[in-house]
C-alpha cells in the first residue's frame, strides 16, 4: 500500500468512528430529553450535544480540521454575522415584556 492509500485508509476508519459517535450522540440527546432537569438545563444540554455533533461533522466529514486559510476566512465572516444575528435576536426579545396570557 502506498503512503496515500494508508493515509486514506486511516481517514476511512476515522469516518466510521465519527459516524458511530454521531449515532450515540443522537441516542444521548433523546435520552437526555426524558430527564427533567428544568427547561433551561434541558435546553442547554440538548444544544451542547447538538453542537458537539455538528462540530464532529464539520471537523471530520467537511475536513475543517485541516483546511486552507481562505475557507477559514469565509467561515470567520459567516460566524461573525451569525453571532451578530443571534445578538440581534436576543436584543429584540429583551425589548418586549414576556407574554403572560394565552389567546
Amino acid at each position, binding site marked *: 500500500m502506498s503512503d*496515500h*492509500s494508508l493515509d*486514506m*485508509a486511516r*481517514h*476511512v476508519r476515522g*469516518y*466510521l468512528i*465519527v*459516524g458511530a459517535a*454521531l*449515532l450515540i450522540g*443522537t*441516542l444521548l*440527546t*433523546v435520552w437526555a*430529553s*426524558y430527564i*427533567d432537569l428544568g*427547561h433551561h438545563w*434541558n*435546553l442547554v444540554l*440538548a*444544544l451542547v*450535544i*447538538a453542537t458537539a*455533533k*455538528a462540530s464532529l*461533522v*464539520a471537523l471530520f*466529514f*467537511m475536513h475543517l480540521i485541516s483546511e*486552507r*486559510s*481562505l*475557507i477559514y476566512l*469565509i*467561515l470567520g*465572516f*459567516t460566524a461573525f*454575522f*451569525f453571532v451578530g*444575528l*443571534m445578538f*440581534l*435576536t436576543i436584543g*429584540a*426579545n429583551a425589548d*418586549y415584556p*414576556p*407574554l*403572560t*396570557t*394565552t*389567546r
Partner: protein
Amino acid sequence: MDIPYTAQPRPDTGIYNAKAGIWLFLASEVMLFGALFSAYILLRVGAAPADWPHGLLNIPIGTFNTAVLILSSVAVVMAWASLKLRQFTRFKTFQAITVLCAVVFLGVKSLEYRDKFMHYEVWKTDGTRLTGHLKGKPMFLTLAKLKAAGWEKIEFIPDAHFYAEGKLAARKHDGEHKTVEIYVSGIKRLSAFVPAHSTYFAIYFTLTALHALHVLGGAVVIAYLFGPGSKMWFTDPERFTNRVEVTGLFWHFVDLVWIFLFPVLYLL
C-alpha cells in the same frame, strides 16, 4: 479555452474553484437557516407555555430519520474516499446508499406530514381544548368546511394527554382512546396540525420543508453523479472527485442543519 483550477488547486489559495464556490454558498445557507432559527427563538420565547405544543411529533420516527441522515453523511464521505483510493465500484455503492437514505428520509418525512394533516385540535365554546383524530381520518378539515357540508356533530378520538400538560406528560400515550361526539355548534375552532394551526406548526413546517427541499436538491445532484455524471471519472478523474467532494460538503451541511432541527422541534 479551458477554465483554470477546476481540477488542480490555485497556487495562491490552495483550493480549486468549486470548493471556494461551495463554501461561499454554504456561508449564505448558514445565514438563511440562521434567520429562520432566529424566528424560531423569537416565536418560542414569545409564546405562552400553554400555546407551545409538546409531544405532537413522533420521537422514535424523528430519531430514525436522524440516524438515516447520519448514515447518508458517512456514505457520502466514504464515496469520496473511495474515489481517492481509485475504487470506482465502491464509490458507486456508497453513492447509491446516500441516494437511498435521502429517499427514505423524504418518504418518512412525507408520512409524518400526512399524519399531521389528519391530527386535529378542537377549541370548544366552553373553553376546553382537545387534540386527537376524527373518525375516518379526514385531512384539512376546518369548522367552516364542517358547517358548509352540513355536519351536526363529529366523532372525535382524543389523545391521552393535551400538549399543554407539559413536555414529559404530553409524550405519554397511555389511557383509553374513547370516541366522543362533539356538536359542531359547540366548536369555536377546528384545525388540523397545518401551518395555520399555530406559530409552532408554522415554524415547524417552514424549517422542515426548507430542509427537505435541500435534501431533495442534494439527492438529485448525488443521483446525477451516480448515474450519467459518473462518465467524467473516465475522462477527468480529478475534476470528478472534486465534484463529489463539493456535493458531499453540501450534504454534510444538510445533515448539520438537521442535527439542530431534531432536538429543537422534537425534543425541547
